[in-house]
Every structure is written in structure tokens, then in C-alpha cells.
């Protein structure tokens, strides 16, 4: 309750401040809206040049405050560049003092003062507010005024599907990331060489390799301190292993357990194969092949275990994991942490279940209260044009990048900046901001470590990466029901998973059939039926 009260009182303060601010900005409004009207005769006769949307400068207000960190800044050079091209200036309304994006969004919605463009990080909430009438339906506007968005959507049917709300209409355009690979296997290649071993081809070989790392002292310090398999993501470290026994659905934390098998929605940890998987994982844990502290070590596990020269194998993001080769090159002689082909699973398949999401819950849309819907959609369209996309991906020509053979190449000063990463430098100036635009993987490729690129290429070229479970949307009713059932099921699944792995309870026919029965009592069948309905609607 204490928290709630605090939230409410702060909401009141925010609202008061908001009203004051609104009062101030109202004074400016007539100037902006007035000037195009005065000159309307002139602008009708003169054609617009290039990306110009309006002849005379127009100001649109935007609410943008996401992941508690990124707040629209009127001084972002990249948006100034866009302003020069389109003649539309954005003015941020989100308070820079606030550190809670979700709360601020809700306060803004509750205040009733909704600016022309609204950015948000939760698509589903945005959609249901759109259906209630807070945001404009964009389909018609796109059809008529946004050729670039239209082209993008027809070329990316999956993205187009995702952008629709459950009623089949579009209220929200999403940020679309690029690049297919996410996580991959990494192994201490120098340890393999030292022990005269090959990369494992099967699960049994993986087991043998982990055992060798454990017993044969590959770091050569005379102490049996090696930790063969580790993970910095706690439970995910176990879920990532499930696929080795053909159990699917573990890779995606947002929809844990769910996968589609020829159009039928299934739940990995409810399938009979799960027993074999968890039985073996528990055995590996007992043998000390899996980090004993995997559940509490947390985000720093990779830094600590690699830095201490005791970590052997992990399953993690390519780029950041490969970076350890640079970081530790001087500290540990011969250190080589290289990408590894996934060992064939017990079904004989070489697969990688994780993949980079091709859609993102962040994006923006247009307020139903706006006076400039056409200009707003045209402005959104600008970021999908070739120049707009390049501007958002690479920044400003001459400042961040140069065109080499028609392709943007980041300047040396940007790539070799020791203090800030490329993405930080761009985001500080308004680039790579999660509004609706199509990311270009070429921007990331230029500063990704060569080891990571090699691994990514291998995974992609050989088609290891499995098709991801689609990001389906629910009706409000389904959502509530889903949350209710899923919370119960997931609580039980994770509790059991951990107890089995830790060896608190044995995995056998008796405990496993009890587990399946308990899942059914918790309503897993209803959950799957509900998910199937939403899935079918999405795929249609």
C-alpha cells in the first residue's frame, strides 16, 4: 500500500507540473499553427522538395521516455538533421527528471494531454489503449500517405503481422531490429588444443568434454578448480541445455516453454522428453560439470569465471562473449574463447534455438487528439525512407560516417573511441533510438569482433538457427487469463526444475508423472488451448 500511495501522490504532482507545462506551451501553439495558415496560399503553389513534408516549419509534440533511460531531447543533432529535411520539428513533452518510463507513460495517459506522437515500450498496452480510442488507427493513413512504410510492410509480412493489434488493425509501428543471430556456444579453444580434444559433435561427446575440463586440469594450475559449463543468466543456463535432448521452448524468456510443432502449440516442459533432459542435466550438475553456483552467480559470472581462467563452456550472445578475447588477451596467455558448433542433439539435429527477435515491443503511434495526422504519418514515413533509415542507423554523414562506395562507413574516431561504444555515441545524438525504423545490421557488423562474426556466419550459413515462436498478441481477456494460468504453471515448473537439478528430489517415473499431473491440475491444458486460439489468429 505504501508504494501505491506514493505512486498516486507523485502522479498528482506530475499532473500538476504537466498542467503548468501545458499552460506554458499553449502560449506558443498559436505561433506555430498560425504561420502555415497565413502562408497557405504560397505553399499550395510551390511544390515540396525532397523529403519536405510541409512548406512551413511545423512543430509536433512527442512523448518519448523508455527503459527509464532514453528521453526525447530537443537538441539531438540527428533529429535536427531530420527537421532540416522534413521541415517538421519534434518537441519532447516527457519530463527529463522522471526515471520511471512506465509510470510516466501512465501518468501522461491519465492526464488526458496526449501529444501528437506517442512512443511506448509495451506494444500490447498501447494497442488496447488504441482500441479504447486513445490512438489513431494507422492503416488508412499508411495506405494513403506513407509509401515507404507500405513498401516495408509488404516486404516484411512478419513485421506487418506483428504490428497489428488483435482486432487486425494497426495502431502502433514497431522498431524492427536486424541481424538473425543471438546466442551461440563458446568453448575455450586453447584448452581443447592443450588436451588434444576436438569440438564435441554429439551430446555424449559434450559430456565427455565437460568431464575432461573438470578432471584434466586444462588451466594447468594444479588445482581442480575448473567450472566446465557456466552461465550468467541463472535459470536460462539450464533452459539453454534442454534443446540438446530435443526439448523445445526454453530459449525465449518472454514465452517460456511455448513452441509450435506444425501449427500445434506445445509446451516443452510438459512433453515426455523433458524427463530424459532434466534427468541428465541433474546428473551433470551432480558430477560438477555444471557450475554449482549457476543459480546465484548472476550477471557477472562470465567476467569472473573467464577472468579467473576457470570457465570452460558457455552459451551466450556472440558479440559480447567474443569480446573477452580482446579483454583477456594480455591477462591469460593463449586465451582463446571461440564459437563452437552446437553438438547434435539426441535426435541427431544440430540446432540453435535462440534467435534475435525480428520485432520489438518499442515503437510509436499517433494520438487520436492530434490536429496533424497526415503530417505525423508522413514524418513516421520519413524514417523508413532510405535517407531516414540511414540517418537513424548511422548518424550524420561527415560527422559519424562517410560514404564509401555508396555504403556508410563509420569514421575512425567513432570506431576507436575508447570511452564510449558506437551505439552509445549514436544514442547520445538521437541515433539508434527505438522508434519505428528498420535497423541495418551493417551498422553493428562494422564494430563486431572478428571471432563473433565468424561464429555468426557459421550459425547462419549452416542454418542452425531455428524458427522462433511468433510474438502473438492477445485480447485483453485472453491476456488476463494467460497471466493467471501462466504464473501458476511457470512457478511450479521452475520450482521443480531447480529442485531436480539441485538433487533435492530425484527424477524418476513416479515424481515425473506426479509433476505432469500437477501441471494438469494447474490448468496447462487450458493454457495451451488459449494459446492455440491466439496463435491461429496470429498465423491467419
Amino acid at each position, binding site marked *: 500500500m505504501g508504494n*501505491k500511495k506514493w505512486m498516486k501522490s507523485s502522479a498528482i504532482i506530475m499532473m500538476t507540473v504537466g498542467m503548468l507545462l501545458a499552460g506554458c506551451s499553449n502560449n506558443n501553439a498559436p505561433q506555430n499553427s498560425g504561420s502555415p495558415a497565413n502562408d497557405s496560399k504560397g505553399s499550395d503553389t510551390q511544390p515540396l522538395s525532397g523529403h519536405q513534408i510541409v512548406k512551413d516549419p511545423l512543430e509536433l509534440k512527442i512523448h518519448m521516455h523508455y527503459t527509464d533511460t532514453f528521453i526525447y531531447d530537443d537538441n539531438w543533432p540527428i533529429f535536427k538533421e531530420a527537421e532540416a529535411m522534413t521541415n517538421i520539428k519534434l518537441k519532447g513533452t516527457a519530463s527529463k527528471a522522471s526515471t520511471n518510463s512506465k509510470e510516466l507513460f501512465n501518468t501522461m495517459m491519465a492526464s488526458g494531454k496526449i501529444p501528437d506522437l506517442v512512443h511506448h515500450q509495451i506494444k500490447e498496452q498501447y494497442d488496447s489503449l488504441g482500441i479504447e480510442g486513445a490512438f489513431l488507427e494507422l492503416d488508412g493513413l499508411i495506405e494513403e500517405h506513407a509509401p515507404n512504410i507500405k513498401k516495408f510492410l509488404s516486404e516484411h509480412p512478419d513485421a506487418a503481422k506483428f504490428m497489428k493489434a488483435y482486432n487486425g488493425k494497426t495502431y502502433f509501428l514497431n522498431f524492427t531490429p536486424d541481424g538473425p543471430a543471438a546466442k551461440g556456444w563458446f568453448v575455450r579453444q586453447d584448452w581443447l588444443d592443450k588436451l588434444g580434444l576436438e569440438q564435441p559433435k554429439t551430446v555424449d561427446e559434450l559430456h565427455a568434454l565437460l568431464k575432461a575440463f573438470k578432471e584434466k586440469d586444462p588451466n594447468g594450475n594444479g588445482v581442480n578448480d575448473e567450472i566446465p559449463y557456466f552461465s550468467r543468466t541463472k535459470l536460462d543456463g539450464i533452459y539453454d541445455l534442454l534443446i540438446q535432448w530435443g526439448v523445445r521452448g526454453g530459449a525465449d524468456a518472454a514465452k517460456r516453454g511455448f513452441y509450435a510443432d506444425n501449427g500445434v502449440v506445445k509446451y516443452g516442459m510438459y512433453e515426455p522428453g523433458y524427463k530424459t533432459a532434466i534427468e541428465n542435466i541433474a546428473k551433470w550438475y551432480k558430477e560438477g560439470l555444471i557450475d554449482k553456483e549457476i543459480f*546465484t552467480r548472476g550477471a557477472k559470472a562470465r567476467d569472473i569465471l573467464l577472468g579467473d581462467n576457470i570457465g570452460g563452456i558457455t552459451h551466450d550472445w556472440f558479440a559480447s562473449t567474443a569480446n573477452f578475447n580482446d579483454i583477456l588477451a594480455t591477462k591469460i596467455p593463449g586465451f582463446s574463447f571461440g564459437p563452437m558448433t552446437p553438438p547434435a542433439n539426441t535426435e541427431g539435429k544440430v540446432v540453435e534455438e535462440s534467435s534475435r527477435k525480428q520485432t520489438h515491443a518499442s515503437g510509436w503511434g499517433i494520438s487520436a487528439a492530434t490536429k496533424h495526422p497526415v503530417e505525423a504519418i508522413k514524418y513516421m514515413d520519413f524514417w523508413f525512407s532510405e535517407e531516414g533509415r540511414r540517418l537513424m542507423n548511422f548518424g550524420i554523414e561527415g560527422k559519424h560516417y562517410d560514404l564509401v562506395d555508396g555504403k556508410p562507413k563509420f569514421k575512425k574516431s567513432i570506431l576507436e573511441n575508447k570511452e564510449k561504444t558506437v551505439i552509445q555515441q549514436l544514442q547520445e545524438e538521437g541515433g539508434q533510438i527505438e522508434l519505428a525504423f528498420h535497423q541495418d545490421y551493417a551498422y553493428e557488423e562494422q564494430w563486431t569482433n572478428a571471432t563473433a562474426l565468424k561464429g555468426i556466419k557459421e550459425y547462419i550459413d549452416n542454418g542452425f538457427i531455428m524458427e522462433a515462436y511468433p510474438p502473438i498478441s492477445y485480447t485483453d481477456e485472453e491476456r488476463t487469463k494467460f497471466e493467471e494460468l501462466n504464473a501458476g504453471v511457470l*512457478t511450479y515448473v521452475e520450482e521443480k526444475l531447480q529442485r531436480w537439478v539441485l538433487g533435492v528430489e530425484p527424477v524418476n517415473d513416479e515424481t515425473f508423472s506426479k509433476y505432469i499431473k500437477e501441471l494438469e491440475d494447474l490448468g496447462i491444458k487450458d493454457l495451451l488451448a488459449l494459446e492455440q486460439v491466439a496463435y491461429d489468429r496470429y498465423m491467419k
Partner: protein
Amino acid sequence: MLLNFKEIKTNLVRDRYLYLLLIPFLAWYIIFAYKPMYGLQIAFKDFSVYKGIEASPWVGFEHFESFFKSPYFWRLLKNTVLLSLYQLLFAFPVPIILALLFNELKNGVFKSTVQTFTYLPHFISVVVVAGIVTNFLAPSNGIINILIEMMGGEKQYFLTNPDYFRTIFIGSMDIWKEAGFGTIIYIAALSGVNPALYEAAVIDGANKWKQMWHITLPAIIPTIAIMLVMKVGSMLEVGYEAIILLYQPATYEAADVINTYVYRSGLQDARYDLATAVGLFNAVVGFILVVFANKMSKKLTDTGLW
């Protein structure tokens, strides 16, 4: 009646500046404590931030049902009550004992040094405390396990064992972190005890123990009683942010409380209505307990909140 009114009027005029001073406090209560109560109705509505409180449709007890009906409701309630009970039993007396100990210290430098050290943890964020706890209890190189091994014991993975959870949680978050800070109010109460009482007791031949038992403790009993009543009122509000940092699926059995479960079932996506329903439930239980505790306190110690 008329006379009374006249009296009030003269009072108002005479003490107008004092009453003027009262206004900010009244305003504070009205704006921050009473007005938000209007919003409590969203516990019974399908609340949408866009439609607002008025326009959101009524749904009756749906939100209450959805968490009463949860398959884990009884376990959650049990864990919540047990954690609170243990907090009362083990964490509540610690600041009192600490304050009594400080009171007996004669060396000023030593006393203030120790006080400062025991206050300090209060200012550390729970996230950091949880990190310290995790490190200290780590099975491979945590200091506790190293000590256990040195003494010939076997290393334990404490944070995955539900049997240890309540001890670890209350020991770190309630005792280590908060006990020192909690002494402040008792020390303040102790400083108000008339020294003449002790002098008289010494003349009567009372030793240190007797002095504490018959003078010091009775002197701070009202403070203790009021602190206890207030603590009982917030009984169901165990610090769930700290629990989330320390628990594991393997320890849900002892650690999963109402608030953590609600958090996991998707509160993040602005389910204000559900959160309000849970908060209201906690508040109603808290209210009943406060009334009860206050009655008890009045009966036993003659002090109470009202």
C-alpha cells in the same frame, strides 16, 4: 450549544496563528492520504488509464477472486504471515535490546562509534545488501562456507534451501540492515528517564539488572507498545523487493509471498487494478490486526494509539 460556538470562535480568533500553522498538515492529509482513497475503487473496476477512474467499468470482486483463486493462495498467505510473525518475534526485539545495551555504555567514544556502525547498514540499498548476502553465502568461496569448511563441516548452497530462507532474509534485511537504525527511537525514549529514579534505586540497593528491569524497561514500555502496534498494522507488507532479490524457484516454498506472486503474474504491465485489490486486502487485514493489537496493548500496558 451557542455558548460552545462562542467559545470556539474566541479560541479561533485568539489562537489564529496556531491554527494557521495547522493548515499545511491538514492539507497534506487531505491531498495525500484521503483524496487517494477515492482511487481505491479501481480495485473493483477494470481500470484503464485512458478512460480514467470514472469511466472504467465495474467488475465487482474479479480482481480479488483472481488472486484468491490462485492455486498458490494458501501457500502465499502462509508464507506472508509466517515471515511477518518471525519478523515480529526475532527482528522486533533486537533494536530494544541494542538500545538497552547502548544505554549502559559509559565510554562515550566507544558508544558513538558502535552506534554509527550499527546505523550504517540502513543506508545501503537492498540491492547491495542482497549482493553481499549472496557473496557471503556462495557455496564455493563465500566466507560463511569457508568458515564452515575450516571447522570441518560441509559446504551448503544456502540460498537454494527453503529451510534457511526465513533466517537469511530476516537476519540480513531486518536485523543486520535495520536494527541499528531502529534503536534511535528507543534511545530517545531512554534519554527521558529521570536520573533521580536510578539514584533512589541505588540507595535502595538495586543492582544494574534490577535497575533495568524496574526502571528502564517500564519507562520505555509505552514506546515499545506503540511501535509494536504500528508494526502489526503493516504485517502483510513484507519487503517483497528484497525477497525478489534473494529468492529462487527452489525456495518458493518458504519465500513466495502474495506480493512477489502478483509481481510475477504480470504487474509490470500496469495492472493497477489488481495491485490495488491486493493492497486493499493487505490494508484491511492490517487494519483488523491494528485494532486488535491496540486493544491488547491498552489492556496490558495502558498505552495505545487511540
